[in-house]
């Protein structure tokens, strides 16, 4: 299972990107995305902003849960902060990343490479709770970064401390 986490600013600009793999069930915490997933993940995350901007008005929560999916198996959860900065988490249950070629390749490839996607349920309470905890932990870290006098709002976050905290949260919950 691979994850792609991104923080998106108010002008749809990325502030922070991080890829990691699952640490549960013996995962080594390394993301296994394919090469083309570099841009595909960004495209997918960017496209889900449409849904975020719609759902944010309907929900009173900051955590917007699972709100979008991209075939064949990429799930997008979102979290929105008070100043309209969005956290997006892309979950790919399979090791093969979201890509057009995984749609177009033969059916056999699909069945072979998806042992975990069959069992993964993005709306299971445990999954949602884990994602929520992850988001809140990142939110804490993000607030502290915001308070830094050297950080300008809506600019990319380059702090290695913040990246370390995100990685720790990922390891802890996902």
């Amino acid at each position, binding site marked *: 299972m691979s994850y792609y986490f991104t923080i998106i600013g108010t002008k749809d600009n990325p502030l922070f990107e991080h890829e990691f793999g699952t640490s549960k069930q013996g995962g080594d915490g390394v993301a296994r995305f394919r090469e083309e997933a570099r841009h595909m993940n960004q*495209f997918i995350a*960017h*496209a889900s902003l449409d*849904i975020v*901007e719609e759902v944010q*008005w309907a929900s009173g929560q900051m955590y917007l849960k699972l709100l979008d999916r991209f075939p064949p198996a990429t799930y997008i959860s979102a979290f929105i902060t008070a100043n309209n900065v969005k956290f997006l988490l892309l979950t790919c249950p399979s090791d093969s990343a979201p890509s*057009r070629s995984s749609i*177009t390749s033969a059916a056999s490839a699909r069945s072979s490479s998806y042992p975990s996607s069959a069992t993964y349920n993005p709306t299971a309470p445990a999954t949602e709770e884990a994602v929520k905890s992850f988001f809140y932990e990142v939110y804490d870290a993000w607030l502290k970064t915001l308070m830094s006098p050297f950080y300008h709002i809506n600019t990319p976050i*380059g*702090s290695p401390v913040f990246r370390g905290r995100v990685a720790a949260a990922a390891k802890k919950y996902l």
Partner: protein
Amino acid sequence: MNPLQDADPLQSPQYSNSESSLVLPKIRASPVASLAGLPYRRSNPSLSSLFASTASILPKSRSGSVTPTAPLVAGSVFSPGATHGAASPASTPQGSQPADEARTLILRSFVPHVGVFASADADELVQQKGLPGGFVELVRPFGERVHGKVTIRDSIGASRSWDDFGIRFTGLRDGIGVPPGGARRSTDSRPGTANGYRNSTEAADAAWLRVGGDVRSIEEVVDRHLAYAEEQSGPTDYLNHKQNTFETPIASSPFYALYLRRLLSGLPMAPHETFSHPVACVLAISSRSPSPIEELRRLYTATSTGDQRLPHWVNNEFLRYYVLVHDEDHDDISKSTSLFEQMKRHFGLHCHLLRLRTNQCVSSDEDCIRIPTCEWISASEELAEIHRREDISDPNIYLHESDAAALRTFVRELTTQSIVPVMERLIATWNEQVASRRRGISGRFMSLSKKWSPFSSSRTSSNPASSNPSNTNYDSLQGFYRPDSPEATMRKLADYAFMLRDFKLASSVYDLLRTDFNTDKAWKHYAAANEMCAVATLMTPANLSSKTRTENVDQMLESASYSFLSRCGAPFYALRTLAMGLELLKLRGSSAADDAARWATKALEMRVVGPVGEALFTERVSACYASRKGTGSMSWGSRRRKAAFWAVLAADSWVKLEKGVQAEKCLSEAGRLYGVDADGVTDLPFEGMRIFMRALSETVGALRRAKRGFDERAEEREADEETLAEDEVVEEISETLDKRPHRKSLVGIGAGPLGPLDTPLSPLRSTEDEPRFKDDQFE
């Protein structure tokens, strides 16, 4: 119409004027075409007139008084009609127009089928006019749109006039589809393949071609059209490529329309739906026949018991319509009139005297018209036509104006005086006798077969191997209901209602059938009922609350596509279901557009489309998202980014297919949606996206350059050839016409490096890139 052709003013007259076969462009195989593995030999004017249909493929007229794009109550926060007084997004003109066309397309594709069975002498008479296909081929183009308005009375007695009503003439046994030699790769299992081969293989071939339902040949046809458009687009240079790309939004791609149309053309005859079962059968004899009445009787017997008998899952009690073809040039009209009177006495009112001239008409004759081309030919038939026209320069067949008028009158009379009244009467009868009982109190608890079938017990006992031994009318071994069973009658009732555009009745009957078919485990019937129920529900002009839509329609589409694909292995029908569902949902606008996009995505996921279809459907997803307009000044609730994303994906698919023009169109659409200007993708915030977009546009530019380079090389070769064969006048003319656009393209090459999409790195962008992701180590 086609911007790719019209954009080049110097080339367009050459191709649009297909009458002049004076100018024959030379053999030219573009690298694009050769890479796609297409056997391109030549493109002559008659062929290009065939391809030009992609430009004007959709009927321009609006259908009747229906306004389908009604604003809806939707689940979304931004859906109109809730609290905002904002205008409905669906009522914007650019949103409703192409959508309406998709609806018209569906309206016009499910029309009554009329089998044609002509005697040998009648066929011979028509063949003398230059139509090798005989009587069917002559009447077929005229049935596609009945001249004048057709008034139909629906089940509650309200009349409505339609001016785009049509009927489909087919050979009587066409839809059964006997493959020539059985060697055809079909994506679909065809029922009734074993039921009798034709004697003459040629006739069988022609009949087979008329059957659609083959996704692969649809792909091939669209690919041909694409390759042609690619070839004809001419060198797009710095000066004109902008107008090209921005003229048509991808929302109304003619190729997608063609794909849909071919998908809905030539429906194969199958037990689980009765659209292609004949509603009537035209029995035609000619005045040359020595014993006409005997001949008609013979034809009748052949259709009811003889070798023209349809398989026994087709209800054989359709209307017989008797036509006497009078040979205006050779036979005596008074004799024919008296014969016609005699026919009327014998066979009742369903008779017609068709007066045709038999002398072959040539284009130089005064009152001649070209025989119209059929719009609703199946994909394989169109392919055959393309192949044929690659060899023959002007295959057009001309008719005398008087013949055309006679045929139009014949079709109109047949439709308004026989077919429509008969169907109306049957609908009323069946509705009263079968469907209303089912709707009653007891009917709700009891399925049809349990109570009202007099045959059910006997048949199940004679069929011990049946998987469900309960009393049902379903023959699960052979997979059909007998045509006299109530289920089959109900299905026919619903289909008739659908064909006469009474969607309310149709959807209610389909809905009843769904449960019955489900209990009988008649999966193909179940899937088909679900499909048509969803379509009929969406076709009703009434508003549909988003709750009904998500609960019923989505569920129906889901089970239809699932059953067709997984239980029955019929990908063609699954694709048809999804395509119709998505089109109809799309035109409902608002949150239904989201659903439409979801179904289009599903079609991609289910792998029911080939490579061309994949690109087209990806494009369609983008169009669905783009059709959803937001509310307010921020246009909240729009799907701009999603539309742009899918447009990029579509461009990627087109690039993989080497279709540079299409890719370019998608790419510029994506750029427009992302809000980046054509000077570069400077505005995209994500680095990966930016790089990918740039790479894509470079590939597109390379494709274009490759084509342009090739054109010039071809021109050089042409010049060489010309010196060798100077006596060929035709060549010379084509040369002079061909050269000028290329001259312009030479200028374009000079300006090439400045071309917007070609520029690898503008200085502006390179400075912009750096600071964006620079690490500011502020901690």
